[in-house]
């Protein structure tokens, strides 16, 4: 008996370990993105996010102050100050004055740069540049340092995205525009699909099976196929590009899955309740409103989450059916793409934008998540 119990606990361990591993694996990219959103563009391109959490030793190119800050002391000209930006803590382990040999001197040593003067750099970045003749030129001397600095993070990306005066207006507008798109685009398909699903599940009429088959067949049609013909239709009937058009498009693209999901859930509801209601003289509409809808709530909620996430993250449908060249309407995804700049490559903004735009879907998800698992199983378990 004990051996059986032993195997059991061993398996539990295996299960728990693999769960932890899987969770870590799934979270890994998100954590990386999150850490990257607190780093500057130069940091992202020079080292990986995993390296940013420990104190790191880096080679940097810094400059002394401009010659116009020089002062005269006992017949010599002096420029002094600290190489690092004001609030930065770093410790220099080696430094140099040419790109050919960046670790020629240790802190405290003095480098003789010939007619450019003599430079002394301390470990904390304090320097003193002395010369007999006046310094000229527009820029300070380059100093190459090898310095270890504590982990450094910045909120600048979030500030730029949310509070920069040139973006703020666009972001706020995009946020409300997106809500205007997403809320109706979630509610309309659910309403239509719930009616349709009831009819397909519980009302008897000729061709019902064929209709269900057609809905399932529509699930595999890629929406990209329909973009141009649908837009042509919208323009022809006078809807044009706008909210109505994008609501209709999202509704159309979301309906097959919605009907399929809800119908499979409703078909699994106990037949007795519905037949009892029929015997008691309830109409189809009463059965739908009083019995089916309350019982199907988990399925409705889970589809609402799906549809909300799709429409929130959608860029393609909005670009085709909503955003016209007047620039009066925009959505969050479009606004984020714009922040990336003409030639792209601003990863720090992309990482930050991902976390800003994720906030609302996360809130929706946590509000409805207890229905999600039940809804996910909709139709699959009898």
């Amino acid at each position, binding site marked *: 008996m004990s051996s059986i119990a032993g195997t059991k606990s061993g398996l539990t361990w295996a299960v728990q370990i693999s769960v932890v591993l899987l969770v870590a694996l799934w979270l890994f990219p998100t954590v990386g993105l999150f850490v990257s959103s607190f780093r*500057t563009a130069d940091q992202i391109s020079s080292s990986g996010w995993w390296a940013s959490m420990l104190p790191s030793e880096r080679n940097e190119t810094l400059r002394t102050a401009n010659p116009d800050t020089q002062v005269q002391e006992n017949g010599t000209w002096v420029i002094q100050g600290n190489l690092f930006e004001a609030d930065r803590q770093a410790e220099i382990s080696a430094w140099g004055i040419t*790109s*050919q040999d960046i670790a020629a001197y240790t802190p405290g040593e003095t480098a003789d740069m010939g007619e450019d003067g003599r430079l002394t750099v301390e470990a904390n970045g304090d320097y003193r540049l002395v010369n007999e003749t006046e310094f000229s030129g527009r820029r300070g001397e380059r100093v190459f340092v090898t310095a270890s600095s504590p982990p450094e993070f910045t909120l600048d990306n979030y500030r730029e995205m949310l509070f920069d005066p040139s973006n703020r207006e666009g972001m706020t507008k995009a946020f409300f525009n997106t809500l205007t798109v997403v809320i109706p685009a979630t509610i309309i398909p659910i309403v239509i699909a719930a009616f349709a699903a009831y009819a397909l599940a519980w009302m008897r009429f000729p061709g019902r099976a064929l209709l269900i088959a057609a809905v399932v067949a529509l699930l595999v049609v890629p929406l990209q196929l329909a973009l*141009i013909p649908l837009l042509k239709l919208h323009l022809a009937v006078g809807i044009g590009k706008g909210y109505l058009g994008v609501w209709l498009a999202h509704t159309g693209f979301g309906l097959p899955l919605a009907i399929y999901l809800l119908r499979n859930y409703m078909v699994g509801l106990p037949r007795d309740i519905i037949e009892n209601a029929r015997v008691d003289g309830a109409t189809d509409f009463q059965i739908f409103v009083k019995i089916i809808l309350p019982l199907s709530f988990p399925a409705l909620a889970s589809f609402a989450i799906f549809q909300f996430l799709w429409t929130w993250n959608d860029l393609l449908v909005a670009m085709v059916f909503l955003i016209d060249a007047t*620039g009066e309407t925009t959505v969050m995804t479009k606004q984020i793409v714009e922040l*990336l700049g*003409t030639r792209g490559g601003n990863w720090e903004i992309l990482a930050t934008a991902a976390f800003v735009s994720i906030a609302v879907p996360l809130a929706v998800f946590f509000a409805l998540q207890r229905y999600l698992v039940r809804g996910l199983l909709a139709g699959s378990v009898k």
Partner: protein
Amino acid sequence: MKTRLMTCTAGMALGAAFCISAAAAADLMYAPGEDTRFNWDSYKAYAESHDLGGEQLTILGPWLGPDQDAFDSVLAYFGEAANVDVRYTGSDSMEQQIVVDAEAGSAPNVAVFPQPGLAADLAKRGFLTPLGADAEAWMKDNYAAGQSWVDLGSYEGKDGSKTFYAFPYKADVKSLVWYVPENFEDAGYEVPSTMEELKALTEQIVADGGTPWCIGLGSGAATGWPATDWVEDMMLRTQPADVYDQWVTNELPFNDPKVVGAIEEFGWFARNDDFVAGGAGAVASTDFRDSPKGMFSSPPQCYLHHQASFIPAFFPEGTEVGLDADFFYFPAYAEKDLGSPVLGAGTLFAITKDSPAAHAFIEFLETPIAHELWMSLEGGGFLTPLKSVNKDVYVTETRKALGDILLDATTFRFDGSDLMPGGVGAGTFWTGMVDYVGGKPAQEVADNIQTSWDALK
């Protein structure tokens, strides 16, 4: 001016935000007539002859961020002068969007094409409106190397006849090598003036224990395009310009020994592990936006970077072009005596939905002030081949020097991959170059590209 102030005060009552947006939309950087460097006469003459009565004009283009801000400030003057409600939207997927919109019939009035290939395609399908003989004649007379700019914007229409459809405004210079002057000083290197010297410098840097080049071809779906610039530059430096012209029209097959020779010239630099930072294997996988950063690292990963005039936007923050980084002209072979060829590119403005305001806008682009305003701005890296502008307006000395290259080129040619059919110039040429740096022989790569070109005919 006065009316705007009034609106602003009225707006105060409704809320400060309204006032800000109204003012920002119509902000003019310089009051007309104020800064004497600008050609305000052309602005006044234009304003007097144009009044569109508040008509709306929509423009779709590729610029975003700071580039968009710069273009918006130029547009503000057009809106003010011609009394047009002008709206610009930028999109990074502009090339796909304009096709969808043109097909469906919801195109903007004016579209800005980053490459001529797509404009030619839309012209052929009848979506573009010809700009007329006047614009064509103006361009021929007023742009440096005017005829070549006219050719860049002339395509076959639906009826098969060639017409001037797209107005080139805003140019890029491609034949540049970027470097860090202070690193050159530290190592004692001189800026080379011939290709022979450039090759000698490359070998010299390796002998000194450094790595000469940073080359990155990565660009998402467009990976490989920086290599096409290399090959085009090499083509112009090993063959006369008329051979180049035959090459871009495929009169000279892609797998001709002359083209294969140019590809191998590029290979001399890119396929040598010692010559490229990270080794030849890293060329295809390094992003073109990240690759120039190697010049600024400590110690420098490389000394030289071949790229167009837009690249300073991707230098590390705080880099001052002209001091921290500079460029020299990608030199020609002294022994070949082919002059100093320059490779360039331009964005093209075409009318996708005809309206009086759209034509007025094209006429606005013919005024020197439209060029000078953008020249005075940092965003967008604006250069112009217009001869009548005041070059002192350029925002930096570097920009001015780049502008001079455009005005003084003895041989000026456009980016060949832009002129080739899309399937080649934005397809197999790119992927072929990735294969080539990956180790495939040049002849085989050229054969494949020619096969794909034949298939398109």
